Structure formats: structure tokens, C-alpha cells
């Protein structure tokens, strides 16, 4: 007879796994209504710490070469593959799917991650431009990352939604503060364990679990957040966020779960450079 070693689900901030600064946690239930886990309930101060951690590494991540970023993201997919058993059992417990369905979801999510990893060094090629100008200049337009992006993960299909929330933002060279889905946070915590053991620099992705209704106003008004993916918010909360976020002109978007390079582009802004010919 062995006593279970139960897991404490914590936050992921700056490459570390702290409990919430507030000491709070909340209860989540499995698909049959039984107790499943007590994930940490992040406070606004945890959000603040996550933004600081992200901002500190933003320059490093955005200035890494696109090829290097895609290699690092591909490596994340390799490690997800090794952890797939853990993802599957959590999805089975949380969503009540069969093992086969859960396995299919995990495989799709990993493939999706690889698909976004591939976009790192293609996005500027396809969506950048050499513009015709009448003068002795080259004129280039290239999409560049906005900076720190907060992303509210939606919960239709937990792991794929997490990948949709995080991977495209990273592929564009942004750093991420992800707020896990309130009901289905376990896969997000497991993904944090994957990221912590990958080559991703600490702080590039930070994952908070807790109540998005509590965190959304602080995300909206935070002057050091440059973009928000509000997919995981209900429409009222999303509209409020847009009002709050107007103060520092955040790029605020909301997506359905269609995979598209638009998700990468939504958190990039075009930069145009004039360069004299012959100098």
C-alpha cells in the first residue's frame, strides 16, 4: 500500500513555479463532478510579476533569429510528445473524453504547435513587402512583434486552445502571459512543465491559473501589456477589456479556433524602412 504523491498545481512565472502570492487556490471538478485538483488562483500581483518577467526577456526573444525561434518551438513539440501520456490522462479526467479521443486531441495539438513553429521564419517572407517607390530608395515593410501579449485561453478543447493561444504569439516574436481557462487549467500547468524543460528562455511564456474575471480588468489597464488575445473571455468582459485597453492602444483580438497565420500577424505591427540605394 503506497500513499499517493499528489501534485500541487502552481503558477509559471519567469521560469519558476511559485504558488500565488495571495496564497489562494480554487477547486476544480472532473467531468463526473468529483474533486479533481486545487490549482493556484493568481492575483493581480502575480499578473504584475508575470508581466515584469515577460518584459525582461522580451528583447532577447524578439531579437533571436526567426530560424532559432522556430527551432526552439519545435523542440517544445518534441517534449510535448514525450509528455503526451500526462496530457491524455488530464484531458480524460477534466473533459470526460475517452482515451482515444483524448489522444487524438493531444496529437492534433502537438501538430498544431509544430505548424505554428514553422511560421517563425516564414511570416516576414510572406507578409513583408518590398514596396515600389519613385526615388532612389529601397522601401521595405516587415512585420515586427508588439512586445508583451496577454492571452486568455478559451476552453472548447483544452490543449488545442492552449496551443492556439500561445504558439502563434510566440512565433511572431512576442512574449506571453497566458491566463489558463478557469475550468480546464490542468493542461496549461502541464504545458508549463514542458516549457520549463525546453530551450525556451525563462519568462518568454508565463502561465497563470485562476479567475479570468478577476484578472481581466488588470490586464486591460496594464500599461506595459501591448496586446491581448481575448478569446477566452465572454463578450461583456471582452468589450470591457477593449475599453480599458484603449488607454495605451493595446492590440486586442479575439479568435475562433481556426488555425491561421492571422493569429501570428494579429500581434505584429508593420515597420517600414526607407534605405537609399547605393549607400
Amino acid at each position: 500500500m503506497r500513499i499517493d504523491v499528489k501534485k500541487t498545481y502552481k503558477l509559471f512565472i519567469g521560469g519558476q513555479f511559485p504558488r500565488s502570492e495571495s496564497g489562494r487556490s480554487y477547486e476544480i471538478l472532473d467531468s463526473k463532478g468529483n474533486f479533481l485538483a486545487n490549482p493556484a488562483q493568481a492575483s493581480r500581483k502575480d499578473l504584475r510579476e508575470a508581466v515584469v518577467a515577460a518584459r525582461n526577456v522580451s528583447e532577447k526573444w524578439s531579437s533571436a533569429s526567426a530560424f532559432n525561434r522556430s527551432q526552439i518551438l519545435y523542440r517544445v513539440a518534441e517534449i510535448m510528445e514525450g509528455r503526451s501520456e500526462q496530457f491524455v490522462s488530464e484531458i480524460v479526467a477534466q473533459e470526460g473524453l475517452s482515451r482515444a479521443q483524448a489522444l487524438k486531441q493531444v496529437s492534433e495539438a502537438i501538430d498544431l504547435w509544430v505548424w505554428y513553429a514553422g511560421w517563425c521564419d516564414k511570416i516576414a517572407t510572406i507578409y513583408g513587402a518590398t514596396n515600389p517607390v519613385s526615388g532612389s530608395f529601397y522601401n521595405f515593410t516587415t512585420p515586427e512583434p508588439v512586445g508583451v501579449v496577454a492571452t486568455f485561453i478559451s476552453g472548447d478543447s483544452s490543449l488545442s486552445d492552449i496551443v492556439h493561444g500561445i504558439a502563434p504569439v510566440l512565433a511572431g516574436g512576442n512574449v506571453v502571459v497566458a491566463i489558463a481557462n478557469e475550468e480546464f487549467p490542468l493542461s496549461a500547468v502541464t504545458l508549463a512543465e514542458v516549457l520549463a524543460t525546453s530551450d525556451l528562455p525563462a519568462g518568454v511564456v508565463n502561465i497563470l491559473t485562476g479567475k479570468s474575471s478577476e484578472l481581466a480588468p488588470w490586464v486591460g489597464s496594464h500599461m506595459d501589456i501591448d496586446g491581448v488575445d481575448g478569446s477566452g473571455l465572454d463578450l461583456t468582459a471582452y468589450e470591457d477589456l477593449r475599453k480599458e485597453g484603449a488607454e495605451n492602444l493595446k492590440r486586442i483580438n479575439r479568435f475562433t479556433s481556426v488555425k491561421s497565420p492571422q493569429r501570428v500577424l494579429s500581434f505584429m505591427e508593420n515597420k517600414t524602412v526607407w534605405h537609399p540605394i547605393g549607400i
Partner: protein
Amino acid sequence: MTMLVIDGSETSIKSFLRTLSPVDQVGAESRAAMLGTRSIKTASKLWAIDTAISMIDLTTLEGADTPGKVMALCTKAVRPDPTDSTVPHVGAVCVYNDMVRIAREHLDNNGGKSIPVAAVSTAFPSGRASLEVKKRDTEDAIADGATEIDMVIDRGAFLSGNLAKVFAEIVCIKEICGDRAHLKVILETGELVTYDNVRKASFLAMAAGADFIKTSTGKVVPAATTPVVLVMLEAVRDYFQMTGKKIGVKPAGGIRTTKDAIKQLVLVNETAGPEWLTPDLFRIGASALLNDLLMQRMKMKNGQYSGRNYVTLD
């Protein structure tokens, strides 16, 4: 408490320092850690932020300092937040010797006449030069308009037990300062190894005429850790009880966040006492700290988290 009788001879210094009570290392560290857990919120926090701003010695001590950078720093010293005139000006501007004149002129021309310029002197940061050079260094700074001198002690002499040399140097620089400049003596606690040494060096400096004792140059890690500041504040308190003279304390190096600064203020209040909570008796040597204090202040005024885009780059 023992009487303070030092005539400058090795024997008198040693026999005085021998009377000092030793520092309980574990006790000092746990007390500093305990005081660090005090929770300072809302109105008290706002007061602490403004007090901390008014105590900052806004510092730039880089080989790459340019007149432009020093002038920008002085502008910031006068009006830390250009969008909010209720923010107090800082305690002083601290620069290398050759930048003193530039800083003084720029402050005078931009409404900062009341802000003193502090110069680091006596072959800062190592202190490895002859006494003649150190004297000239100090004279130069004062002639250029410095009214505060941050001198370093000769740590090599201190550690090899040559306390009379350390003492004599401080006395000599103090003579040059006279009533023209305040003297801050940098102990460089990161190189003194033990808390006992910090306590001894503090008393040595105070007995030799320091107006302030300062933890560090900022070039050595660790710098102003809370236990070290606690030990120095206790020394200052004991010295006050012995002599009735109030000596200031200046932690410098490694204080970067509002939280760190508030911890320092709590230490001052609980160790030396609330009468030390003034820029005349407590200063914080820092550069990045000011931005964090301003961002916290904005958060308290506007209710939203601020970012680095809303404060100046240093």
C-alpha cells in the same frame, strides 16, 4: 557605555574598538529579515515612496558617463516625473569628479539650486592611491562645486589591521571638507567580510569625523544588504548615545525596487529611530530605483500598472 577617547594612535583606536559589543550574525540577519516582512500599504506606502524619492542620491558612476547623460540625470533630479509636479526632488546628484561642474551648473540653471552635488573621491572605487592624490581629488571636487564628498576607506589597510592609517586618512579628508562639504565615508562592506568588521569600520569612520557612513561603492557585490544596513544603523544609534552626535547612513548598491527601498525605511525607523527618516540623515544611493518608485507612484495615483515606457531611460 564606554567613553570615546581616540587620539589617532593605533593603540587608542584598537583599545576603543575592543570595547564594542560584537555583532550577533544570526540575530542581525533574522531581525533584518523579520523587519523586511512589514506590510506598508496605501497612504503609508505613498508617504514612504515620496520620502524615499527625497532621499535618493541619484547616481551615475560609469566610465561611459557623458556630459549629456549627467545633464539628463540632473533634470530628472529636479523634476523626477515631468507629468506630476507633486513628486519631490531627489536628495542629491552623485557623479564622478570631472562631472561635478557640469552637474552643478545644470542644476543651478534648471531650478535645482537646493539640490547638492556629491562627488566620489579619494581614488574611488578602489581607494588605491597615495594620500596626496586623494587630497587633491577631494580639493578638486569641492572647488568644482561639490558640497558632499563620498570617500572610500583603504580596505587593504583596514583588513591588515592598519587602523591608524584608515583613521588618519578620514581625518585628513574631513579637514579638507571643513564646513564646505559633508563627508560620507564608504566602508565597502562587501569587502569587509564580517559584520563585526562593519561595526568596527563604522565606529572608526564616525570617530574620525564622518557625517555619513555609506555601505558600498556599488562596484562590489554584495552591496547594501539589509543586515549590513541594520548593523550600521545600530552603530549610528550607539554612537549617538555615546556622543550625542547624529551621523547619517547611506546604503548604496543593489536597491532597485520600491519594496527594497521601503524595507530600508522600516529598518531606519525601527533601529535608529524616526528622527533619522530625513534626507539629512538617511540617503539611498541608486539610479534604477527612482524609476520603480515613480512607476509605483503612478500605480497608486491612477490605479493601473505602469510600464517602462512611461519613465525615462537612464
